[in-house]
């Protein structure tokens, strides 16, 4: 296989392979939620008040530590069970980073630099909270996501199925449904990595503002898994500012090519546009602020 084509194929297949365990985790979590979490129970558990609901959704990654590949199936199921759209959105944005596994991998990559770990979590949290609260105000009547109306495990069944068979069937259906978007996202990411030159982008790394402006689109382009991106960010540490590294690790899990199609499939287009604008704007400003505080004026 010629060089460029080999590169395209290897990157494409590797993204698909690497995402599969995490997608499976997500679809089984979704299947369990489908079977055992009723809409009534979810409604009882949710606090009153939009702020509290968004806050809870942002921190739910500590209970359900799913990465960016697995968060969508679980979020779709929560949405189908009646979780408000703005809270579902906050969960999708926060959970891939605000969870113990990703924070631990960040700590390992940055040799227990807890400032980096804390700032990464805080920046992600801030975007998820902001988008969640804005969505709750700007589009309270937003149409539901493209998921089923709230369904209980017994709907459509002539007799209660065996639990394991029912969970496996749900998981298989969900897996095949989102596989299309995972594969398309992987293909798009691989093609971009292969054919879009990034040398000039990285050459901007010298200045504080330029380094942030360069690494943010690079993160979107590379679409690296949330459990691996800290190691890649550390490889940039000699060239780019701390704020740029944090921006890389934050925006890459919120706006990335690989999961972009899945996000459009799950959330209304207006909401996805809001996510992109708020995430890019807020993270850029926060990264510059981090540079100013940590590196001086």
């Amino acid at each position, binding site marked *: 296989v010629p060089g460029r084509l080999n590169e395209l194929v290897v990157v494409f297949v590797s993204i698909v392979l690497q995402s599969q365990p995490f997608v*499976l985790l997500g679809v089984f979590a979704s299947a369990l939620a489908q079977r055992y979490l009723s809409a009534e129970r979810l409604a009882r558990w949710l606090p009153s008040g939009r702020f509290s609901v968004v806050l809870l959704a942002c921190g739910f990654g500590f209970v359900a530590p799913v990465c960016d590949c697995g968060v969508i199936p679980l979020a779709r199921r929560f949405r189908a069970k009646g979780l408000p759209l703005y809270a579902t959105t906050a969960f999708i944005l926060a959970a891939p980073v605000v969870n113990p596994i990703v924070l631990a991998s960040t700590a390992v990559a940055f040799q227990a630099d807890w400032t980096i770990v804390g700032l990464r979590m805080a920046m992600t949290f801030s975007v998820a909270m902001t988008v969640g609260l804005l969505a709750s105000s700007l589009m309270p009547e937003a149409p539901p996501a493209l998921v089923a109306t709230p369904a209980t495990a017994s709907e459509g069944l002539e007799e209660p199925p065996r639990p394991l068979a029912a969970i496996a069937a749900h998981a298989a259906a969900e897996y095949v449904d989102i596989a299309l978007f995972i594969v398309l996202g992987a293909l798009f990411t691989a093609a971009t990595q292969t054919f879009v030159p990034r040398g000039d982008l990285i050459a901007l790394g010298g200045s504080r503002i330029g380094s942030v402006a360069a690494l943010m689109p690079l993160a979107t382009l590379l679409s690296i898994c949330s459990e691996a991106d800290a190691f890649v960010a550390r490889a940039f540490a000699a060239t780019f500012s701390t704020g740029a590294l944090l921006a890389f690790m934050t925006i890459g899990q919120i706006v990335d090519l690989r999961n972009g199609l899945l996000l459009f499939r799950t959330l209304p287009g207006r909401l996805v546009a809001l996510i992109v604008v708020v995430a890019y704007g807020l993270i850029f400003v926060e990264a510059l602020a981090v540079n100013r505080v940590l590196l001086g004026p």
Partner: protein
Amino acid sequence: MSERVTALGRAGLLLASAALIAKLFAAGQMMKYIAPALDPLTALTGLVLGAMGAMEVRRALRCRSRRHSAGCSSVPRALEHDHGVEGTLERGVTYGVVLLPLVLGMAVAPQALGTSALGGERVTRLLLTFAPGSPATPRPSAPDEPLNDIGPLLAYLRRVGEGSVGQPVRVTGMVMRSDALEAGEFALLRYAMVHCVADARPVVLLVVTPASPDVQPDQWIEIEGELASRERDGDHLVTVLARRIKSVEEPRNPYLFVAY
């Protein structure tokens, strides 16, 4: 489309995914896609996908044995609607796209990423440097193990920095040429990955040779020489003074799996 056909389609995709994972392990090709540290997780994924596929086959067979497909469903109708049973064409396109990486993974013999995967990043920006603050006057510090590849070399450099100068070293990688390098110099490239090839980043060493060697870009070579330091634009570059260069085949495992 009937429930039975849907279940068979899902079973086909799930079993094909499991088969790809099995094939890559059996052919020793998995490490060209995924870091070996993830092998247990990947193998478990293959088993789960295979089991899910087998359960879908069983479900399809149960559907065939019954007159009414609703009786064999263990998926709520709302979910079935969610998953688009209605469109045969849509389903065909979906399956075709999802099968694409499976077919490619089965058919293609993967090679390591080459210099083209750098995406236009400049060689001079990629050259490995000694960490700032390394001792100005190098003090010999013997490595715990022979520096017989870039992995052990990186571990040693992290420990002693510029104190490594003068140590014998053997490294394997791909040749990179650049007009920005001086006469008698070229760069040696290896990729290091964390999870998969998509997150691979280059590790690039400056190589200095007494005479211009007959090597081509992307050619795999093994170099024996001595570690040195070259100052350029204020940076101290990790440099290999080559004594012997020989052409080698692409290693069975061409990537480094280190937190570089």
